[in-house]
């Protein structure tokens, strides 16, 4: 029964399979007829169409936003750039076309080899290949006249990014460079040949806004690959322009001073300069001063650019007028394409030109941290303003001795005197009475231990240590000795120069939580920052101490005390130890920074505000391994502040707030 049924099913299936086969045959036949129609009957027609003008949808990049300084000077601008590319398929004779081009272009050398190789290697006969880039208008005019005799070539107008202030502002502007594979996104403009993307600084931070939205166009292209006509489909939107708070001239000057450090500047053709140049093995070093000048160090040799950082900030609005990190590098070189040799040299440079030390360098704040300890001590009432601590050159805790920088000791000092002379023992004592927690709390209120949110990528948070932090990190309990060295800004404490200048600004503006910012924004200018809750009289004592640290009889920054600047500076020096000094070294005598190898010397630091009576601007200067903060960093800071105030007089004075008046110290103050 089943078999019969199965046989019947099989007969039906065979019959119907044949019907199905026939239907499939007919349908396939229809495809064949259609293909025949397209590829034979109408072929000539389509052949013509394919040689005729074609419509193509192309992505049209929009111009990148321009970045300007507060005076409207261009920091990152666009320049016209002409480029010749060629479609090999459409050139009658590639070799001879390239030869013709070579004869026409006189201002730039180019090599035909890579073009030919590119055509051969990638079998790339249909893609435009860039032959020569960065042409002048005159070259292009000559080529345009001859273009009909050179089929296959295309003249393209692009825009290239240019940084007029180059190296001096590179750590703010950042730079653009060709897009890497990992940076490709949905935006088709990034895939275009010659596309650039912001790699660091403002260019990176505001990449999306600066880049804008690319447009789309329908383009009519003839058989020779030339564009006949464009029909806009989507317009896109140009990148947004940005105005920064930076003062480009000041920035340039700050950068130059920082690179020079304590070196002497002499004309290049002077006797001492020539002697130094003769003795130098690599002649490029130390020529950075420019304009026929060279930098000479104390020994009369050429001085390489110092590595350091400096910031100038409006203490009320937080506007950053200058933010420099040296050595820098030329952002324009990146745009043109860096040679591997130059790239390796940048990376291997021990003074790290690629790192923005102002926001990403971590340094122990050293003595400039001492005002934090003062404020914490006053707030917690562990000391009175007038109480004297006797400095005998060291302090003992258990078996250990904690030394003051002045081995002979400062004798009895009160708070103002301790700040003036930067007496370490006074602050050891305050720290011992306080413990680490109140110190850390005060430091955080003034901006240490976290990023400040400046509009630059790569800002680092620094480190404010504490008991929990140490247990989590090292699994060990906090030691009292560590509290003591925290009291002089050493030990685990780490801060960026940006945090240091922000601390200075907050001390000088009446303890308001100002934050640094780089984008000039009229609305944000009128915003007033919240109070940190520090009593005015506490602030006044500290500011008096900082005034004395520059202008006092025993000032650590005495080097700038007697300068006739027309205003006074209040500030704090720091000579940050980067190594532990052994007992042996203490016994054998004074250790001079100059006698140590460079990477063991102290960092020279100075933070200050001016004018001292009506503070307006704060600055922080750091020279890595520069030695004494008073002797090396303070003079640079004085020049920077003088220039800043002179500029302000020229361009209109900033809002000024009088320094809080001295008031009698009251313990019940909050």
């Amino acid at each position, binding site marked *: 029964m089943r078999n019969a049924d199965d046989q019947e099913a099989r007969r039906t299936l065979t019959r119907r399979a044949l019907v199905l086969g026939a239907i499939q045959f007919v349908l396939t036949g229809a495809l064949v007829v259609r293909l025949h129609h397209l590829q034979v009957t109408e*072929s000539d027609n389509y052949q013509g169409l394919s040689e005729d003008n074609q419509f*193509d949808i192309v992505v049209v990049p929009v111009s990148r936003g321009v970045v300007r300084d507060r005076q409207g000077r261009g920091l990152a601008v666009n320049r016209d750039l002409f480029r010749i590319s060629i479609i090999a398929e459409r050139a009658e004779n590639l070799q001879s076309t390239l030869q013709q081009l070579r004869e026409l272009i006189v201002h730039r050398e180019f090599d035909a080899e890579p073009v030919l190789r590119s055509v051969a290697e990638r079998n790339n006969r249909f893609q435009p290949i860039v032959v020569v880039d960065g042409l002048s208008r005159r070259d292009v005019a000559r080529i345009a006249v001859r273009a009909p005799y050179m089929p296959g070539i295309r003249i393209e107008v692009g825009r290239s990014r240019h940084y007029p202030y180059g190296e001096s502002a590179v750590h703010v502007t950042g730079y653009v460079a060709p897009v890497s594979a990992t940076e490709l996104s949905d935006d088709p403009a990034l895939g275009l040949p010659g596309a650039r993307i912001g790699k660091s600084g403002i260019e990176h931070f505001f990449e999306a806004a600066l880049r804008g939205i690319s447009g789309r166009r329908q383009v009519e292209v003839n058989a020779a690959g030339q564009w006949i006509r464009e029909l806009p489909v989507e317009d896109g939107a140009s990148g947004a322009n940005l105005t920064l708070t930076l003062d480009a001239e000041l920035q340039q000057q700050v950068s130059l001073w920082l690179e020079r450090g304590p070196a002497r500047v002499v004309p290049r053709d002077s006797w001492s300069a020539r002697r130094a140049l003769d003795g130098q093995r690599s002649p490029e070093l130390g020529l950075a001063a420019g304009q026929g000048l060279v930098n000479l160090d104390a020994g009369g040799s050429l001085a390489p650019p110092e590595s350091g950082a400096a910031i100038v900030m409006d203490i009320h609005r937080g506007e950053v007028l200058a933010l420099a990190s040296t050595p820098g590098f030329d952002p324009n070189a990146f745009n043109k394409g860096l040679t591997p040799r130059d790239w390796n040299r940048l990376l291997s440079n021990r003074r790290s030109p690629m790192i923005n030390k102002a926001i990403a360098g971590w340094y122990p704040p050293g003595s400039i941290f001492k005002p934090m300890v003062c404020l914490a001590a006053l707030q917690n009432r562990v000391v009175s303003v007038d109480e004297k601590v006797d400095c005998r050159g060291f302090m003992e805790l258990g078996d250990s001795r904690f030394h003051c920088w002045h081995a002979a000791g400062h004798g009895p000092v009160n708070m103002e005197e301790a700040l003036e002379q930067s007496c370490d023992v006074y602050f050891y004592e305050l720290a011992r009475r306080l413990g680490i927690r109140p110190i850390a709390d005060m430091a955080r209120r003034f901006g240490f231990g976290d990023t400040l949110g400046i509009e630059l990528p790569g800002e680092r948070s620094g480190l404010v240590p504490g008991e929990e932090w140490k247990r989590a990190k090292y699994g060990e309990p906090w030691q009292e000795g560590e509290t003591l060295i925290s009291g002089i800004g050493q030990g685990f404490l780490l801060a960026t120069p940006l945090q240091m200048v922000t601390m200075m600004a907050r001390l000088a503006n009446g303890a308001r939580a100002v934050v640094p910012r780089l984008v000039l924004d009229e609305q944000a200018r009128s915003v007033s920052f919240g109070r940190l809750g520090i009593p005015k009289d506490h602030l006044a004592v500290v500011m008096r101490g900082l005034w004395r640290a520059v202008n006092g009889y025993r000032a650590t920054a005495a080097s700038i005390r007697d300068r006739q600047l027309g205003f006074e500076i209040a500030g704090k020096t720091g000579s940050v130890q980067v190594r532990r000094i052994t007992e042996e070294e203490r016994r054998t005598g004074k250790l001079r920074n100059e006698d140590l190898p460079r990477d063991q010397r102290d960092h020279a630091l100075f933070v200050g505000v001016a004018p001292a009576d009506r503070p307006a601007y704060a600055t922080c200067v750091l020279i890595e391994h520069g030695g004494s903060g008073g002797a090396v960093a303070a003079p640079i800071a004085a020049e920077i502040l003088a220039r800043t105030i002179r500029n302000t007089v020229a361009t209109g004075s900033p809002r000024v707030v009088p320094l809080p008046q001295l008031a009698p110290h009251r313990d019940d103050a909050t």
Partner: protein
Amino acid sequence: MSRLEAEQLGPEAPGPLQKIATLNWGLIAIVVLIAAIGCATLYSAGQGSWDPWAMQQALRFTVGLVLAIGIALIDIRFLLNSAYPVYAFTLLLVVAVEFVGEIGKGAQRWIDLGVVQLQPSELMKVVMVMVLARHFHGMTRERIGRVVPLLLPLALVLVPVILIFRQPDFGTAALILCGAGTMFFLAGVRLWKFLLVFVVMVGSVPLVWLTLEDYQRERIETFLDPGRDPLGAGYHITQSKIALGSGGLFGKGFLQGSQSRLNFLPEKQTDFAFTLYAEEFGLMGALFLLVLFSLVVAFACIIGMRAGSQFARLLALGAGVTVFLYVFVNVAMVTGLVPVVGAPLPLVSYGGTAMITFMIAIGFMVSAHVHRDVPIGRQTGEGF
């Protein structure tokens, strides 16, 4: 199963090694040839480079070939027995992807298997063949002749089709419906019933329309009238026709397809790969490829008519229909005969799902060939 039958089955159920000898090598050779043409086309699409498509495609084909031979070598009765579970599992995937897709705002219609990303709705094309072959295998002619027993297989078809239709993926839903209809036809369902179903479906169109979301309606309208999006589908077809037409009788030569290479032709590595191939190899090349695919379908017919069980017959013929539908819809689309539905050409278009689905279909055909003399009872595992 009785002892007698077990003895009868003995010589007819050969071991794996003997089965390899009985594989349909002719069919496999044709498939390999098609895959080679596909890789060459993708090599050309990649501007004369194995990257980024040709090498990956070759790799996937190797995986697919192993899969097809694997399917062919396992006992066909195992395929029969696993038809319902496999169907249930695939349906679950369709539902799961639908669910995930809803969360991901329709972006997620894929399941990632490492080497290939699988689209369950595409897989459903072959699974539908398998489950219907299984179902009709178990039905007597008398039951097929009635109406009520057909409601179950109808449900087997309509549940996934409606789900996929609502994704919305009209192309795939229509193709599954087409393939399933052919299975009903081959099984011997009366012709007037097809007419009836057709009338019911046309009648229910307004009803379905009402249940759709706005964006789904939008997509259907664009599907039916590509002119609504002149820079999309219409532009594709114009460019495709120019590329095909300028190829002429003998083509422009390998790696010389200027239309495709100048990027006038969009999607040249996926849906329009056939255009690129036919531009470079002309009508002759196109016909050659069509003949190869037709041979695959012919093999399916021959195997199907020769096979000893209804399951094997329906499996082979259904697989053949799946292959035919793939090829026909793609070529008709790129030549402008039917609207752009986003249908790939198996082995030639770059993509994993069509490749795997196609190779499973090949596996079904070869299996039906290898097991052509294995009789199977109406209820498997039991006697006749």
